[in-house]
């Protein structure tokens, strides 16, 4: 008997079918061996596939939404899925089947359905009951933040400014040692003593 988990967000629902990995002492209600998934969008054809298709499709949606928000050209193309923006409000999705002689499925979705779909994927990523290779989260993290996560880089950033400041202070003050004229100083001292 297969387990079934559903994630809903307004007009979109994502269904995951699979089995727990008993060899890994998992609970009965968990899914780590996904056999099938179904993405249902109201008024649109059903999208379903195997586990190897789910990761690339999730990645495509995450990358596309990032491009859209970052004001970059919102186009994502791959062997499995193409997503392009028709205009500011409508997105064109082309799903290509891995089977021969099957025409690609073309969907037009608005911003509301796009956010519903991504929210369903977020729910799947955050679910503790489904254990899959979660690639979506890593794609959400921009390069700048990835650097911030690195502790070595943080420590280097923390220690370098005071180190450079101390070095420059030492170098700057050492130049005055060479400018200091000891003979002149001796003459001055003698004049003071005579007075």
């Amino acid at each position, binding site marked *: 008997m297969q387990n079934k988990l559903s994630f809903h967000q307004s007009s979109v629902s994502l269904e995951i079918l699979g089995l727990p990995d008993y060899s890994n002492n998992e609970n009965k209600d968990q899914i780590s061996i996904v056999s099938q998934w179904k993405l249902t969008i109201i008024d649109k054809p059903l999208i379903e596939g195997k586990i190897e298709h789910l990761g690339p499709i999730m990645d495509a949606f995450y990358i596309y939404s990032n491009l859209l928000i970052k004001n970059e050209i919102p186009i994502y193309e791959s062997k499995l899925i193409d997503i392009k923006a028709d205009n500011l409000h409508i997105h064109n999705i082309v799903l290509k089947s891995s089977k021969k002689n099957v025409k690609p499925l073309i969907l037009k979705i608005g911003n509301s359905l796009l956010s519903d779909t991504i*929210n369903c994927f*977020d729910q799947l990523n*955050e679910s503790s009951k489904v254990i899959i290779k979660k690639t979506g989260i890593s794609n959400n993290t921009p390069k700048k933040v990835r650097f911030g996560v690195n502790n070595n880089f943080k420590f280097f950033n923390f220690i370098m400014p005071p180190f450079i400041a101390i070095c420059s202070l030492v170098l700057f003050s050492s130049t005055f040692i060479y400018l200091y004229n000891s003979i002149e100083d001796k003459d001055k001292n003698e004049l003071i003593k005579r007075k």
Partner: protein
Amino acid sequence: MSRYLYPYIRKILQSKEDHHMNSVIWNDFNNRLFELIKERFNLNSMRVKKLLNQTENNEIIVKSLLTLSLCISNQGYQKLKNFLFNI
């Protein structure tokens, strides 16, 4: 917070997708947003002027709403932070 506002955000986004749909929701949202901007922002600033310019602000408002609608998960705060870092 965007999780609780998601149904409203979604409706506002949806109202802009279909031209046949009633644009009352979009107009109401736009009017309230303008009121708030006029109350709280420095109107002499060029950026605020751009935000109030109805021919230019459409894209900014839609993208801001879309960003909020994508950040309703448990990790939404981190996601929003990442989006803002990226701008």
